[in-house]
């Protein structure tokens, strides 16, 4: 009875989620994170992670190639700005469609294998795209410099002459600052609704069944590959959307977005927050992007200020041991955090929350029942 969490009413969930996302500029301001640049990042990577979670969280297929779709999305969006119009709507549409097509091709090939071979296949495709974007595809990608807008771009739909470079707009609203955030947030909410529908649909259930036991699934007469491919394409489209949004808020695209370590980043976010849960990946994005922002800004003086209350020798000592982990060393902290998460909390922050919740409730009722349920939860997540 405790194993099956009560499913909240969908409409209510969506309303709460939208409210939380849209009021982010308000409730994040005490935390010092309410400026548009960071908020946009939250929303964009949120879209990316939600989409990635549909593949990795539901089916358990670990892809290292999603950065390639992100890159395709970005390049498509910038080309749409260059050739068609500075309106972001066509850019987003084209990006999602093209990234979807790209994902369909790569997915069709990669999904012939599973497990670690699937990971390596996606890795190989991502590296191929990255290498090509850097070298031969320079006419399309502008190689190392990255694709940028230029004054002499044709822009056949709105080629009105402006001073300097035109900025991206949504039917006249310039997507800078907070309007940019609200634009991305709208897509985040849309993406969340779709993900929610998938999670609670028979299709989502089939994907979960593939993760649990693919062989058994096949024996019951399902051909698993079409479902896997659909999930792969959907998550590729999310990645393309995220890439397009990146280009909308900052109209340039570079090949480094396609490198496999960039895919690693979204894996980190998803795992840290909680694989296979609805909110986990978003939590992961929030935590990583927020702390990246905070930690990277801390320098030695700031550290001295933090440990100011301690005696001098202890202050020096604390600054000495914490210094490698902040500022430039943020990635070190991230790596350690990630290792600890995978080792001790494979379900990420969400599992931690569940665990605490169960601990709290079991103290009130029955001690033994609480421990037994957490154990099943652990078994479920580690398999």
């Amino acid at each position, binding site marked *: 009875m405790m194993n099956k969490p009560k499913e909240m009413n969908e409409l209510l969930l969506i309303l709460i989620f939208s409210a939380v996302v849209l009021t982010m500029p308000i409730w994040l301001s005490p935390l010092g994170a309410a400026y548009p640049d960071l908020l946009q990042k939250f929303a964009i990577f949120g879209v990316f992670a939600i989409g990635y979670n549909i593949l990795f969280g539901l089916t358990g297929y670990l892809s290292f190639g999603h950065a390639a779709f992100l890159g395709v999305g970005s390049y498509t969006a910038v080309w749409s700005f260059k050739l068609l119009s500075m309106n972001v709507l066509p850019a987003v549409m084209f990006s999602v469609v093209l990234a979807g097509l790209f994902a369909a091709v790569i997915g069709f*090939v990669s999904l012939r294998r599973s*497990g670690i*071979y699937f990971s390596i296949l996606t890795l190989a495709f991502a590296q191929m795209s990255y290498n090509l974007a850097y070298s031969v595809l320079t006419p399309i990608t502008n190689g190392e410099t990255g694709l940028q807008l230029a004054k002499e771009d044709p822009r056949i739909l709105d080629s009105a002459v402006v001073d300097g470079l035109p900025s991206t707009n949504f039917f006249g609203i310039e997507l800078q600052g907070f309007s940019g955030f609200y634009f991305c947030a709208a897509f985040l909410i849309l993406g969340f609704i779709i993900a929610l529908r998938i999670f609670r649909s028979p299709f989502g259930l089939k994907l979960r069944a593939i993760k649990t036991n693919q062989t058994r699934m096949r024996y019951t007469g399902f051909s698993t590959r079409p479902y896997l491919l659909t999930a792969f394409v959907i998550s590729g489209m999310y990645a393309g959307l995220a890439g397009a949004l990146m280009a909308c808020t900052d109209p340039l695209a570079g090949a480094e977005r396609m490198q496999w370590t960039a895919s690693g980043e979204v894996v980190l976010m998803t795992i840290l927050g909680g694989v296979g849960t609805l909110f986990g990946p978003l939590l992961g994005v929030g935590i990583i992007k927020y702390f990246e922002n905070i930690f990277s800004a801390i320098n030695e003086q700031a550290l001295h200020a933090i440990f100011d209350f301690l005696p001098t020798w202890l202050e020096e000592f604390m600054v000495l041991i914490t210094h490698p982990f902040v500022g*430039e060393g943020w990635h070190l902290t991230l790596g350690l955090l990630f290792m600890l998460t995978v080792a001790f909390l494979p379900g990420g922050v969400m599992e931690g929350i569940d665990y605490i919740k169960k601990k709290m409730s079991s103290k009130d009722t029955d001690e033994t029942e609480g421990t037994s349920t957490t154990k099943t939860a652990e078994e479920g997540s580690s398999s």
Partner: protein
Amino acid sequence: MFLYRNQNKNKCRDMDTILLQLLNGLDKGGAYALIALGLTLVFGTLGVVNFAHGALFMLGAFCAVSFNKLLTLSKKVKDESITFFDAYKEQPYLEIWLGDTGTTIIDWSVPLSILIAIPVMLLIGLAMERGLIRHFYKRSHAEQILFTFGLAIVLQEIVKSVFGANPIPTPAPDIVSGSANLGAALGLGDNLVYPWWRLIYLMFSAVIIAGVFAFLKLTTFGMVVRAGIHDKETVGLLGINIERRFTIVFGLAAVVSGLAGVMYVPVLPPDYHLGMDFLVLSFVVVVVGGMGSLEGAVAAGFLLGILQSFCSLNEIKAIIPGIDQIIIYLVAVVILLVKPRGLMGKKGVMED
């Protein structure tokens, strides 16, 4: 007559190019093979997919760099050659203490650092296996990948914070820093020259590979390890502590890829993300060779190296542009799809 000679000359040049690319491929393949050998050794024995293996290669390279830095610790001394004013120059302590011998030692720092790298890498490997990786034997491959990926990030960030983000060039010994005139030696004309150090690297990798194989095939220890790869449980039932031997094998794998890194320093100045760059390649090599097959890893390493260097020929690039950038991955994709076990993979090892 003139025409004929001209043709002959052309033919000769083609021959040179082919030989040159073959050498290029062989020595690139040497590096691939060494890393892949370590990777597949770990996979075959411990069953762990180690994404931190590239970091071991990188750590090996930085062994050489730090050894060189250690040797060239220097103090300011008065420059006697300038008499106008007091000028100072840096002079390494070694030169001050040992004179010319010191200079020679510094010159040979890269090959000498092998001596340091072996114990250091062995310790790193053992510590890594006993301290961290041991706890992940029973976890899924995905979790192993994720954990070791995190470990790789941590290792490379540590190196970055110590050595900075820029590549650090460390030269090969003076005698071998030039190029060998192979053409003259083989009687093919003077056009065929090749850097000495890369030839040495090729020889070195051949020796190491031979050493590892000899260790596994000719010693009792190796025999037990091979039996363990085949059937761990039975070997354990025979009263052999196979876990401990596998730990030693992990140390060995760390040493092999570390040494590959040490000797690669003069070829490519190492920076902190060297490991990640080589990791993907070496995984591809392992997969092409066949998971868990040592011979396969070596063969695939050399094969892919040669293939890559031939694809960077201008003639081939003219037909299919960009092929040199993707050939390795393309081969991997094709092999994985048509021959899922890789070139020499054994039945029953990691099949899905």
